[in-house]
């Protein structure tokens, strides 16, 4: 069984290699191959899962060492995999949801000329993410981490002919680099502290080092997680990443990429357990982001960007839970899995809506679509109920546990974190209800299709005739079936995991688990969660369900306008980082030009001048050459004699 682990990564990697190198020959069949290999990876994962379930809880972890990657004295890095319950969870999520998104993309990308390449990138994305969660050491994890960064860059900028997509891809890549620096510094610190970066030795000896070092490593890991998981202050790329094709958004938000940060923190649990300050920082980042994302989600009219804000917020919940320590790790992962189902479903639903609406993304130009797209409506609706935490559905079980754990943190911190989490739940209910009402209810606010020349944001591949009214229709089966399957997960996963603490027990050997003891009863917290959810839904209904919705967004309050601009994140980055950076580079360039170049050019000029003068000695006359030789010999003799005399 151990030997199967490498195949998990190898299957999609092979797909990427074949599809990207195969050339036009594979244009007809490439998408089937990509989907098949993603599915194969899922089947292998399922086989390994079945095998794992059959074993005792403590000896479920598998290990496979392929070869020594960097065999240097005192610096050993292996290509080796570790498959424990935590990795297993991710493997099933990545390959399962990933395969569904592959299937969906067959229909969604049908008219795109570069579909084969798209599937190659998707496979690469899966392979990198699987490598990330299967690595048994931080260096290999870093490899996967960077691979995810690369694949996301390629996919976000897939429609590279659109300047906005190219910019968004670049932005995602650059912001991620900041986080990557954190991870690389953390790995270096680990190496200087422990002399290794394998999970086993590092995580089992965290107690031997100082708390200060653990805090430093923890904070660097947090920085890394902020980059990949789009947490404040490195959240700015996520909204722009919507420039990618919608299946990519689903993949990034549900199965790969943004979950990597949560994985990193939970995987490094022992480091954070030994560094309470770093843990506190994690919870603060999570709490801030969950409000930040939720507020942004309320103001966006672009359906994908509203969902992007929602992702940011939901990942904030996970990070918050991961920062709570052993009382929260399992819930962070549980929310991650349930979120994987409903967020993938919501994104695929959004894609389906756009598919039927001439690729319009402005929700103010939707309305009343439930009749025209019943399957999308139902599956999207179930995802909606799951994310707002409707009792009995997935989100309810996982989010409620996180809120409980936040309160259980204890003291003032516990009250603040719990309060923020509750507030977040209310806002979640509000903005998701808003999305639901604007899209599927109310009267039709459809607009004629824009002129593609004037609106370069239109996704290509679909015939858009300027001025034509949209004809909403249900999407093809390759798109609806994945949505249906994901909806089933959105409905049932929470109950399956949550009832009887099944998921917690499954993960306990890896992440440990402590029962949190909130200052108020669990029942009270659950009631409060449901209550704020109802409040959020009600407010949204009053605002958007009872009144006609204007097609052009009203000016709105100061907060609304700020939230539309992603709470001024880009303005902040521009003023502080870009301008500051420009000033810094300008002064450095000045020093470089005057001082460094002056010295360098001066040296070069003097050497060149010397060369020109020496060259004149070479005048072409044999007699001069003979004189030179004669003189040289005289000097040689004199020097030899002089040496002896001295």
């Amino acid at each position, binding site marked *: 069984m151990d030997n199967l682990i490498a195949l998990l990564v190898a299957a999609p990697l092979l797909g990427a290699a074949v599809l990207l190198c195969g050339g036009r020959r594979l244009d007809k069949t490439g998408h089937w191959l990509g989907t098949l290999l993603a599915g194969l990876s899922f089947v292998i994962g399922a086989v390994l899962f079945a095998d794992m379930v059959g074993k005792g809880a403590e000896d479920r972890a598998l290990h496979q060492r392929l070869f020594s990657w960097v065999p240097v004295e005192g610096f050993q890095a292996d290509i080796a995999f570790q498959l424990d319950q935590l990795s297993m969870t991710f493997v099933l999520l990545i390959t399962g949801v990933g395969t569904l998104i592959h299937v969906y993309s067959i229909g969604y990308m049908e008219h795109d000329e570069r579909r084969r390449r798209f599937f190659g990138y998707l496979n690469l994305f899966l392979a990198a993410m699987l490598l990330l969660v299967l690595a048994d050491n931080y260096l290999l994890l870093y490899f996967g981490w960077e691979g995810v960064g690369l694949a996301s860059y390629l996919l976000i900028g897939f429609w590279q002919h659109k300047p906005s997509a190219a910019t968004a891809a670049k932005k995602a890549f650059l912001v991620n680099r900041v986080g990557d620096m954190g991870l690389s510094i953390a790995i270096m610190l680990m190496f200087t502290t422990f002399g290794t970066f394998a999970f086993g030795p590092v995580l089992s000896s965290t107690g031997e080092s100082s708390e200060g070092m653990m805090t430093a490593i923890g904070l660097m890991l947090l920085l890394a997680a902020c980059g990949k998981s789009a947490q404040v202050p490195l959240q700015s790329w996520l909204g722009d990443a919507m420039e990618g094709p919608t299946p990519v958004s689903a993949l990034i938000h549900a199965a790969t990429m943004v979950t990597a940060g949560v994985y990193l923190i939970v995987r490094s649990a022992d480091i954070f357990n030994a560094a309470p300050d770093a843990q506190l920082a994690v919870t603060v980042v999570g709490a801030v982001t969950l409000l930040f994302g939720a507020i942004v989600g309320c103001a966006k009219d672009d359906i994908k960007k509203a969902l992007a804000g929602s992702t940011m917020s939901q990942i904030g919940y996970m990070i918050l839970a991961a920062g709570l320590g052993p009382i929260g790790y399992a819930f962070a992962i549980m929310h991650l899995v349930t979120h994987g189902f409903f967020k993938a479903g919501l994104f695929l639903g959004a894609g389906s809506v756009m598919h039927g609406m001439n690729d319009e993304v402005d929700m103010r130009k939707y309305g009343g679509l439930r009749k025209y797209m019943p399957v999308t409506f139902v599956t999207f609706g179930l995802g909606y109920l799951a994310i707002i935490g409707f009792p009995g559905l997935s989100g309810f079980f996982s989010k409620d546990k996180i809120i409980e754990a936040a309160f259980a943190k204890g003291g003032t911190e516990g009250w603040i974190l719990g309060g923020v989490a509750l507030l977040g739940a209310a806002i979640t209910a509000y903005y998701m209800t808003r999305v639901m009402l604007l899209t599927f209810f109310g009267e039709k606010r459809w607009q004629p299709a824009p002129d593609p020349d004037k609106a370069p944001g239109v996704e290509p591949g679909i015939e858009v005739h300027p001025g034509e009214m949209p004809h909403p229709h249900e999407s093809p089966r390759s798109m609806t079936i994945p949505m249906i399957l994901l909806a089933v997960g959105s409905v049932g996963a929470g109950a399956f995991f949550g009832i009887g603490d099944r998921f917690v027990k499954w993960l306990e050997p890896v992440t440990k688990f402590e029962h949190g003891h909130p200052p108020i009863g669990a029942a009270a917290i659950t009631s409060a969660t449901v209550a704020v959810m109802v409040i959020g839904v009600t407010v949204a209904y009053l605002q958007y369900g009872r009144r006609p919705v204007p097609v052009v967004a009203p000016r709105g309050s100061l907060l609304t306008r700020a939230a539309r601009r992603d709470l001024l994140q880009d303005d902040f980055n521009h003023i502080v980082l870009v301008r500051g950076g420009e000033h810094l580079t300008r002064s450095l360039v000045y020093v470089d030009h005057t001082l460094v170049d002056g010295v360098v050019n001066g040296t070069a000029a003097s050497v060149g001048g010397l060369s020109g003068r*020496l060259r004149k000695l*070479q005048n072409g006359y044999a007699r001069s050459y003979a004189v030179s*030789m004669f003189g*040289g010999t005289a*000097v040689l*003799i004199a020097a*030899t*004699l002089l040496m002896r005399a001295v």
Partner: protein
Amino acid sequence: MSASAVAPAVHSLWTAAAEPLTKIPAPHIEYVQLSPVLIVVGAAVLSVLVEAFVPRKRRYHSQVFLTVLALVAAFAAIVGLAAGGYGSTKAHIAAMGAVAVDGPALFLQGTILLASIVAVFTFAERRLDPVHHGHKVDSFAAEAAAVPGSEQERAAAKAGFTTTEVFPLALFAVAGMLVFPAANDLLTLFIALEVFSLPLYLLCAVARRRRLMSQEAAVKYFLLGAFSSAFLLFGIALLYGYAGSVSYATIADVVDGSVAAVDPALAQTMGNDVLLLIGFAMVLMGLLFKVGAVPFHMWTPDVYQGAPTPVTGFMAAATKVAAFGALLRLLYVVLPGLTWDWRPVMWGVAIVTMLGGAIVAITQTDIKRLLAYSSIAHAGFLLAGVIAATPTGISSVLFYLGAYSFVTIGAFAVVTLVRDAGGEATHLSKWAGLGRRSPLVAAVFAVFLLAFAGIPLTSGFSGKFAVFKAAAEGGAGALVVVGVVSSAIAAFFYIRVIVLMFFSEPKADGPTVAVPSAFTAATITAGVVVTLVLGLAPQYFLDLAGQASVFVR
């Protein structure tokens, strides 16, 4: 076996004729151990006969075949001797004390032979120039003796004459070069020097294009070579006066003070250190002239530029190997007792050679002159390894020579390909944009330039690293600093050519790149392969050079 055991004043091979002719002792010659030299000399004589008796039509093919066969056979003999342990355990001095058969000698002879084989391929190239009067032409004059531009020259060209004499000349030169690093007494050293120098003077004069320049180069080379030979010979005389012998081992013993017996005829001079030092300086000068060290380098650019390019490549590579071999043997075998005297002097020579070569190269505009100055700078780097005065110093120089020869021959072979109506287009401005028109040739040349510059993953880096490491370990750290600075200066003009080739707009009337026959193609391929192999996996060859780094005494 060693001459010091007998300690005659002058060893018998050279004085036999001076004694009463009652009985001439037959010299004892180890034919097998000398077989590489004998094969080449024999082939050279045979080659002269071919020149005399084989019909003109078949001469070219016979000569190419004979030359390559002889060089390959000689190389096989070297390999055989090395496999037989003559490079290590069985190393000794053959031919009555005249010639050493040891590791460095075999390694250097092997290098010379390999370099000669690939160089001879460029001699044999006949496809670069268009067919002339229905005859294929090579790089050499139709009739070297004809006055340039004369009616006689035109007639010779029309009749399809070719100077196939270059092959026997090359073979004689190779034979001299083989003996040069193995010479174990000063007279053999001198004879070997003349045996390889004279054919080279001639070879320089036989260019088919720009004949006046070629002849001027040959005359300059000959004059200055004769001048330096005079110094060398004078130095030999002084050393004989000092030691009463021309044998390396005996001189070394006198330097050490381990020989007390004084030849009555030389009682006035023997043991006089002034003679030793002046004689040493003059012999050293003769060798430094051949390696092209500053200030004895001035012939190099003129001769490299004027000589037919295949000859330049052959000369630049093989002469340097032979001369450095002789220099090493002189310093390590004859004068180890004088290390404290010669090291400071050589420091000075190495420094001015490295800096001089690199600095003057910057303002060169002709690719052949550029490569000439580059070869001067490389002589300086090699001197840094010589100065290390350690076994690693020897092995690093051996390795460097092997690496450098192939880069040089390859680079000059590429130069023969870039041509316009006037023959080779050697002015640098003509090379602008070559990378656009002929990416392969430009890329290959770039590999050679990077190797010259010592960029990692090429043999140039491995070699330079080895000599600098040896020099630093041998206590010449300051020399290494100068070496690195010179390398930085040198990198400028190598990279400049690459920039010129790849990042400049091609000129409208730019040169074309001739498609070579298999000969030149083989030379260039060998150059690239050796450059990359020695750059990527140098360890085997460094070990080989390390095993071959012990001189026999």
